[in-house]
Structure formats: structure tokens, C-alpha cells
């Protein structure tokens, strides 16, 4: 299956997320839309993965530590060919595989289940440690949220990865500026974030998390002997749907019928 254009993949992810959360009356729409471009660039242009052979030992690993973005993850995998898109209708359905937080059981392409914040980077460190020095080098990408950087466990892992010089590890921060109860800058500020990573022995770059060309440049790396890399992706919560952008309420609400129609129009999608 030829790879989709990342821009079109991002649009398809957003459309699916809206339909899934509308159908399931599920939350975290804004968190899914903020990282849709990151996931699209990864799966369309960066990762060495085979959708029809998802356990290929040479594959790159992806851990979505912000497990509440499950709808976007499932949509990215389905739209990339890991499983049929009609399985997305089972999102958050009683008794089905597709739990509201990322699950690996019976979902091809998901490496690990997540949902409690502050776990993913340690898992990624373990994978990077196991895989470094391989030929070809498998890279491990861990997508974390900005709010998740409140967790002390995340910083244990940042310290560890720097000390171990895990050059095949990349942490991507979906910096949409919101956490559950308010703006990150008001709850517990993270700035200067790049400097924090650098002082722990990482390389760190800041990027517009919706600029596909810029994301491609930052996320492509050879996984060699360099330090671990942090890509701080500045994003907008709810990106792509005008009335959802930069609004905390879309961490919780699901779109009603009228909002779904308006959102799909925003994304250039027919009903």
C-alpha cells in the first residue's frame, strides 16, 4: 500500500476522530486534534513500519504516552493500513477492543497500552536500550503531552536517557498549552522546556507542530550515537476545527450532531 500524503492523512485522522468521538460520546477531541499532524507525519513520512507486518522486528517503535489521544492513534493506524477503517466504528464500544485510552490488545500497530500519564518515556527508554546498536537501527518515538511533564516519573526517564545517551530515542512533546484544569503556564509552568531537556543531556528543537515540512525535518534522524532528541512541537488544542481551537472544554466534550457537521465542513469533508 503506497503511503498517503501526510497532509491528507492528517485530514483523514481528524475526520475519523470527530466521527468516533461523536458516535461514542467520547472526550479528548482537542487532544487528538493537536497531535494529528504529528501522527500523520510519522506514519506517512518518517517511520519504518509495515502495516501488513506490524511485528517486524526491525520496525521503528511508537509509544503514545498521552493515551487519551486514543482516537487519533487508532485513526492514524487504520488510515495507514494496519487494519480496516470500519473497525474504528468500535471505538469505546462496550466489549470491543478499542478502549478510550490506547490499548495494544487486538489493535495491530499499537506497541503498548497507555492511559496513565508518565509511563511512556520509561517504556521507550527500555525499548531504545534493547534496540540500540542493531542493524538496521530501530528508532523509538515517544509522544508525550505537555501536562504529562508534570509527572516526576517522566523526568526520571529524561535523566536516564541522557545518561545512557540513547541516540535512537526521540521524545515528541505535544505542547498544546493545556492540561486538564487549565493552561500549562498557569497550572505548573514548563518553560524553558528545551533548556530543561538540554541540561539533562538531550538535544532539543522547537517546531511548529502543524508544519509538516518542519516536522519531517525534525523527526527524521539516523538513531546513531548522538544524544536522545526532544522535539517540542508547539500545537493548538483542537487544531483544524475553528470552533474547537484553543478551548479547554474540548478536552471533555464530544461533538453533538450539529457540531459534527460544522466540524466536518471545516475539514472539507462531505457528510
Amino acid at each position: 500500500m503506497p503511503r498517503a500524503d501526510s497532509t491528507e492523512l492528517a485530514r483523514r485522522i481528524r475526520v475519523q476522530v470527530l466521527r468516533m468521538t461523536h458516535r461514542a460520546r467520547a472526550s479528548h477531541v482537542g487532544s487528538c486534534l493537536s497531535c494529528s499532524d504529528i501522527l500523520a507525519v510519522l506514519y506517512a513520512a518518517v517511520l519504518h513500519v509495515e502495516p501488513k507486518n506490524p511485528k517486524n522486528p526491525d520496525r521503528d517503535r511508537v509509544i503514545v504516552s498521552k493515551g487519551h489521544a486514543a482516537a487519533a492513534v487508532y485513526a492514524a493506524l487504520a488510515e495507514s493500513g494496519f487494519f480496516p477503517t470500519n473497525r474504528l466504528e468500535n471505538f469505546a464500544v462496550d466489549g470491543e477492543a478499542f478502549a478510550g485510552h490506547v490499548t495494544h490488545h487486538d489493535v495491530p500497530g499499537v506497541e503498548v497500552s497507555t492511559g496513565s500519564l508518565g509511563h511512556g518515556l520509561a517504556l521507550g527508554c527500555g525499548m531504545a536500550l534493547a534496540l540500540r546498536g542493531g542493524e538496521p537501527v530501530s528508532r523509538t518515538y515517544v509522544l508525550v503531552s505537555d501536562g504529562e511533564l508534570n509527572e516526576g516519573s517522566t523526568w526520571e526517564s529524561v535523566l536516564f536517557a541522557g545518561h545512557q545517551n540513547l541516540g535512537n530515542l526521540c521524545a515528541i512533546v505535544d505542547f498544546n498549552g493545556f492540561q486538564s484544569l487549565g493552561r500549562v503556564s498557569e497550572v505548573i509552568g514548563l518553560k524553558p522546556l528545551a533548556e530543561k531537556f538540554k541540561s539533562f543531556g538531550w538535544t532539543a528543537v522547537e517546531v511548529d507542530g502543524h508544519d509538516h515540512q518542519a516536522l519531517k525535518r525534525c523527526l527524521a534522524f539516523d538513531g546513531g550515537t548522538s544524544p536522545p532528541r526532544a522535539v517540542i512541537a508547539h500545537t493548538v488544542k483542537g487544531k483544524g476545527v475553528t470552533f474547537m481551537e484553543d478551548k479547554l472544554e474540548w478536552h471533555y466534550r464530544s461533538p453533538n450532531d450539529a457540531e459534527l457537521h460544522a466540524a466536518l465542513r471545516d475539514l472539507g469533508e462531505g457528510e
Partner: protein
Amino acid sequence: MRSAFIEAVCRAARKNPQLWLLTADLGYSVLESFAKSFPDRFVNVGVAEQNMIGVAAGLALSGKKVVTYSIVNFATMRCLEQIRNDVCHHSADVKIVGVGGGYAYGTQGHTHHGIEDLSVMGALPNIDVVAPADPIESRLVADLVLGTNRPAYVRLGKAGEPAVHHKDPPFQHGRVIRLLEGSDALIIATGGLVEEAANASGELERRGLSVAVWSCPWLRPFDDGALRDAARSFPVIVTAEEAVETGGLGAIVARVIAGLGGERPRHVLAAVPATRGPSAISQASARALYRLDAKGLAERISEVIDVS
């Protein structure tokens, strides 16, 4: 007990190049042999237990077999959710080793009393929970858990524990070890209290009572079948554990007995009560205070069986 376990890990590592050992900066004079023999598979992650368990799970999900090492409370409760989500939920091939089980570090204070681990780990899904009684059981447990791909929690003592066995007993996954025969009562003990139970049996024998003793290293899987059989033949069953009374061996035995029909044995649950004694307390004093030593166990049995 620690050394017997780690020697077994070293032997396994010689045969299995995928076996790794992680420590959260503990194991002075215990882990050096592994570190020296397998420097590429030994990682001191620093004083960071949550990260240790996540890293262990990540390694295991990439094809490695991983042993993690720390003191009981730090090995389990400090990183409990990582064990639950990252190890158990993924059936990751991680063996969590906690040293200093019970009151082994008693005078160090309550932070180092490893008495809730059996209950806490027993509440998690998909993980074996095992507490060997002496160096021989420790080696047998190591060989067995390292031979599986399942998560396991292994509670060890520290050093210098007396030998309960003088040769390898029949040993199987999830099975009790029948140590002493008897007919008036049965003591099922786990970990370091097996020795106390054996001594209690000897003391009661001098007073005319015939008390059987089982070592029960496996809290999960638990030997339900053996217990059900015993419940038909012993009028009194005592459980003995250097652990809190909620959720451990006694609670497991009570659950099985409660499910039996007909006449049931009397169950005496010897464990650490909810109300605790001093923070600095030696293992011997704690066992005496909570009536978990040979004298205390013998007294408990005398109280429910008429010794003439």
C-alpha cells in the same frame, strides 16, 4: 537467600544472552558478580524505581528477560502502577525481586518493613507471587521463574537465614512443600516463618501434639487443591506470614476454606495486625510481639486444641 537467588540468575544469564538485571542503586556486595560477568546486561538505573520498571517492561517487550532488584517496598509500592500497567497488563517477562521481606530490616524503621508487599502484589493481575523460605527454596524459585516468560514477584529475606531444607525438596510451580507430617493441626507458613513453624511443631510434639508443617512459597498461583484436601483431614489450620493480615496467605486460605461445604477446619490466622508496634524493631522482637515466632505459633495452637 539473596546470594542464592543471584547466583541462580548468573547461571541463567550464562545460558541466556537475553537476560538483563536492573537495580535501583541497591545490592552492594550482592550484584557485583553479575555486573562483572555481564556488564552489557547490567544497568544501575539510579534511585528511580518507576523508571526502572518502565525500562524493564520496554526491554522485555523488545525480547529481553529482565530481573529488577531493590528493597521490598521500593521494588513494589514505589512503582506499583508501573508494575500494574506496564508489566502485568502486557505480560512482560519481568521478574521483580524485593529483598528484606518482613522485618528483615526491622530496626531501620517502618519505611523498611516489607509487610504489605504480598497483599499489594497479590491484588495485581497476571503475576506470580512467591516468597521462598530459605536459600534452597530461593534457588529453586529463581530457576523456576526464570524459566517462564510470565511476570513474577519474588520476596526474599536478606542474608544469613537458616536452612529449612537440607536437600532439594520436591518443587513445582504453584505447589506447597510438605515439610513435616502431623495429624492434630497443620501450619501453612510462607517465607521466613517456615522455620518458626517447624520449631513450633517440635515444641508441640514434646507436649503430645502432632502438627504438620507446609512451606507455601507460592501465594500465586496458590495450591487450592492441596488446601482443600488438608481441610478434610485437619481440624485446625494455622497460616503464618510475616506480613499484614489483609490480603496475604491467611486471606487466601480463608477464601478457599470459606468456599468449602460441610464441616470446615478452624483457621487461625497468624500475621501482622493492623495496630503496629515500635518503628525500630528487630525481626526477632517483631515475631515475638505479633506471636509469629515458634513460641507464639505454639501458643496459638494450644489455645484452640486442648493439650492435656
